[in-house]
């Protein structure tokens, strides 16, 4: 994704997606936000917001955890303000999707 994009949904989830896409928390600048509805591990219908971030800086394994926590806190406060139904979850993924290696079947 070359510019900020937002998945289309209705109501508070849509508002939160648009809000998330415009956020900046420390070094974090969302490139895109995808939202979908699914059952969580308890079987409860939930909102899942996947935030696409630029790949971590060269030499870094991931993004700054303090910035991630800050974005999570701000999102909670905004979700409460918008009265978004609980549960909802944030996910973070890099712009470049590299399939992890699973090179061969182990010896039997």
């Amino acid at each position, binding site marked *: 994704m070359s510019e900020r994009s937002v998945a289309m949904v209705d109501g508070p989830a849509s508002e939160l997606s648009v809000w998330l896409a415009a956020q900046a928390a420390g070094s974090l600048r969302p490139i895109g936000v995808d939202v979908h509805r699914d059952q*969580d*591990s308890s079987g409860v219908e939930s909102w899942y917001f996947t935030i696409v971030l630029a*790949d*971590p800086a060269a030499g870094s*394994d*991931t*993004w700054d*955890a*303090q910035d*991630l*926590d800050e974005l*999570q*806190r701000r999102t*909670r406060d905004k*979700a*409460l303000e918008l009265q978004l139904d*609980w*549960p*909802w*979850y*944030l*996910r*973070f*993924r*890099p712009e470049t*999707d*590299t*399939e*992890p*290696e*699973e*090179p061969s079947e182990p010896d039997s």
Partner: protein
Amino acid sequence: MQRDIRPVWLIRLAEELGGVGATQGQPRNTDLRRSVSTGYYAVFHCLALATAGAALPNATLEEVFGLARHVSHSSIKQVAAYVAGNQPPKHLDSVVGRLRSNSAVSSVAATFVDLQEQREEADYNHLADFTRPGTLALVARAKRAVKSTDQGGASDDFQAFFGLIALRTSIGRA
């Protein structure tokens, strides 16, 4: 040889599995899944021990370990969810509001909720999608949560958080 379960050792393992510091290649998908699960258990054991320690302030370590076995995943999840955004029972509004205004407690609670959900996916969902940066972001947040709990656990807000978890915990016949 008896060795207790140390959250910081679980964090170290989660980092190794997730490929912290690896200069090339990607960890195996299986390793990323185990990394998420191990990071979750680091935070779970950290909070279970802190809750048991808060409930039995003058207990021996052995007594704390014994009580910690009764602190359930669901008890922590319920209380963490209140702080992370779920509506608490009406009469807990005030204390939950106070905990939400504490950034350290808020981060620990949100990290537990996120890790618990992704741990379920890591362990049971064949179609779950894991990336190395995404996995290590979870592990980094788990590491911060363990450190915050260890350093700030004696504060009034953390003690209130542990108190709510203890109230959700029932001692069965386990």
